[in-house]
């Protein structure tokens, strides 16, 4: 199995997605570097480019485009690997989704470039962008649904062809990821299609701001899990194979994904803790639900370290930590995702702080938050995706990851970790001092505290420069693996379940049950507050174009 490549047509579909993803990384990285320079006062932008225009591009390109394209490309490849060559229908849906998403991405990008959409990637009303910006975003979401439908169909085909059998773990996790995405994006689709588009065309005069924000955040938190789950797929399914071990437990892996689905959606109010119009009781209820994700997170951490330890001992490791030495540190396919995992420990701790009612007051909308998600998505998730790309791209292009490129990839990982430690460390610290996020260079009239923030912003720029070099190295590797690396067969590592692991109970694949519970939790957490938001709504807001 290991020496066979996945179907060439399927490989093409995956590659098309992955390339768009990495182009977005390059462009977004340029924006990121410039942002750090502007913020620290080192440069002013030429040619009438605005800081917030740049920041909109950075957020959209990296948080929305890179992630979504990479994830869909990766999941399709793994589904083809584990359930067999895609049937005609699912593959067509994959391409249809790709073209719809890409049309949307192009429209959105043009609107940002023409400065008709400097509303940041969260597009909070009543700042009003060109309707085409929202239409572009809607197309991206609709395209991703079409791709998701393709994956669901392939999975169902497999189940029909293999009645009563447990589906391959990768395909189960891929379906769970796309299901979470589907349920979550319903919220953002609702505000974009029903509120923002009619309002920005002028078909209606005003918008219910709080409703729009609430629908956005219904989507905004699970968005984070949409990024994380594919990284977890790598950690659960791919890494065990790379380190020469086994998946610790199939059932625990599936159970943790079920719990992520259940507890990542009914929690959006933890992003709205400091705003009026939502009662503190409902905020508290959603904060409680938020903390439930600690359970599957701890399960994940346990499984991973159990896998590491078991494989280490099998290779003859002794003592409490002897297994650490047995890990393949020099293998970029392991090293990059592993550093991602490691960074996830402080990142997760920071997340608990963010979601706590009272601590949120201290850090809300400060650079602390920006520092936080540069650890989670821009390091844990990004390094894992880079680590996947190092074997996935050559697997798809029929080339191999050479020793030299492997070394370069390890250097990339180190550059990234060092740069991020500096940038994110400085962001966290200066955030605690009160420095706001999403803010261009300012001293507030030489106010002493604000002057005291500048050195940290300089540190951000130094870290940002490391990161940008990291991005250049990464792009070099991607181009090399795509077009120049020696021809050959790079393995698609899919782990096997440990022999002593228990049989997986069928209930974990009972989709009706889990969707039912998920919907019930959402209705519980949102019905009353949303009814209140609509019933007690103030007169709506007209649109503003303040840039």
């Amino acid at each position, binding site marked *: 199995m290991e020496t066979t490549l996945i179907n060439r047509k399927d490989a093409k579909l995956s590659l098309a997605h992955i390339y768009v993803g990495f182009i977005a990384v390059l462009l977004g990285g340029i924006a990121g570097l410039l942002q750090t320079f502007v913020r620290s006062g080192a440069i002013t932008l030429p040619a009438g480019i605005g800081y917030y225009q740049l920041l909109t591009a950075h957020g959209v390109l990296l948080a929305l485009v890179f992630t979504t394209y990479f994830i869909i490309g990766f999941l399709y490849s793994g589904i083809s690997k584990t359930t067999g060559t895609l049937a005609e229908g699912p593959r067509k849906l994959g391409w249809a989704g790709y073209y719809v998403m890409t049309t949307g991405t192009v429209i959105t990008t043009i609107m940002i470039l023409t400065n008709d959409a400097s509303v940041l990637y969260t597009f909070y009303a009543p700042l009003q962008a060109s309707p085409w910006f929202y239409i572009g975003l809607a197309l991206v979401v609709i395209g991703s649904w079409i791709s998701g439908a393709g994956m669901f169909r392939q999975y169902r085909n497999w189940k029909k062809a293999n009645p009563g059998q447990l589906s391959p773990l990768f395909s189960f996790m891929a379906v769970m990821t796309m299901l979470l995405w589907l349920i979550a994006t319903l919220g953002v689709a609702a505000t974009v299609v029903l509120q923002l588009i009619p309002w920005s065309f002028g078909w209606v005069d005003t918008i219910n701001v*709080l409703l729009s924000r609430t629908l956005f955040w219904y989507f905004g938190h699970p968005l984070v899990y949409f990024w994380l789950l594919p990284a977890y797929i790598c950690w659960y399914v791919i890494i065990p194979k790379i380190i020469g071990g086994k998946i610790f437990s199939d059932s*625990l892996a599936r159970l943790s994904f079920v719990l992520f689905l259940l507890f990542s959606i009914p929690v959006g109010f933890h992003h709205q803790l*400091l705003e009026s119009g939502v009662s*503190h009781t409902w*905020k508290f209820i959603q904060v409680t639900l938020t903390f439930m994700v600690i359970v599957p997170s701890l399960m994940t951490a346990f499984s991973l370290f159990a896998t590491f330890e078991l494989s280490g001992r099998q290779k003859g490791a002794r003592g409490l930590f002897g297994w650490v030495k047995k890990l393949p540190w020099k293998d970029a396919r392991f090293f990059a995702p592993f550093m991602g995992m490691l960074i996830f420990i402080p990142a997760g701790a920071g997340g608990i702080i963010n979601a706590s009612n009272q601590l949120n007051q*201290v850090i809300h909308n*400060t650079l602390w938050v920006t520092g936080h998600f540069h650890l989670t998505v821009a390091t844990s998730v990004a390094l894992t995706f880079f680590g996947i790309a190092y074997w996935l791209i050559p697997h798809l292009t029929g080339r191999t990851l050479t020793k030299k490129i492997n070394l370069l990839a390890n250097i990339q990982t180190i550059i990234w970790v060092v740069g991020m430690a500096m940038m994110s460390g400085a962001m966290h610290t200066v955030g605690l001092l009160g420095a706001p996020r999403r803010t261009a*260079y300012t001293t507030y009239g030489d106010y002493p505290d604000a002057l005291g923030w500048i050195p940290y912003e300089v540190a951000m720029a130094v870290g940002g420069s490391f990161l940008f070099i990291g991005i250049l190295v990464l792009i070099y590797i991607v181009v090399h693996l795509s077009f120049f690396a020696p021809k050959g067969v790079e393995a698609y590592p899919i782990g096997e379940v440990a022999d002593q692991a228990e049989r997986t109970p069928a209930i974990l694949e009972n989709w009706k049950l889990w969707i039912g519970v998920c919907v019930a939790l959402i209705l519980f957490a949102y019905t009353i507050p949303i009814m209140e938001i609509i019933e007690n709504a103030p*007169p709506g807001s007209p649109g503003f174009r*303040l840039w």
Partner: protein
Amino acid sequence: MHMHKYEKIWLIFGGITLIVFLSVIGVSAFAMGHHPPSDMTTIDPEKVKETAPFDDPGLKKIGDNEYEAVMVAQAFMFGEPLEVPKGATVHFKVTSADVVHGFSIPGTNVNMMITPGHINTITHTFDEAGEFLIICNEYCGVGHQAMSGRIEVN
């Protein structure tokens, strides 16, 4: 479903931490009244300047060294600087005349969102003299980085 012994211990430990955590937050919120700012009052966002108390913004003395500060956040200002004596308790009452703004005073725990159509409130006691900065920490347009106000405590 069978679980490894260590995994059970690990999850029980996690579960207990979770309960402790939530209890701390819950007690602090409901018993000690440390709620996040969650004012439920609404206002017509297009008639802010004609609606009391925002038709007459500024500082009002409402008790012994206790003040109400009525403020309108709008692109890109918070209004006139305020001046209060040391030890003053100030109840900030703020709304927006245009887009979403932030309202934070670095060096204090004052931090809340100002959404148009809604009024938000927060209270702070200024125990130390000095000049405090109010900043907008939610993106609101080209002049966002300049949006600030001052409070003089003496």
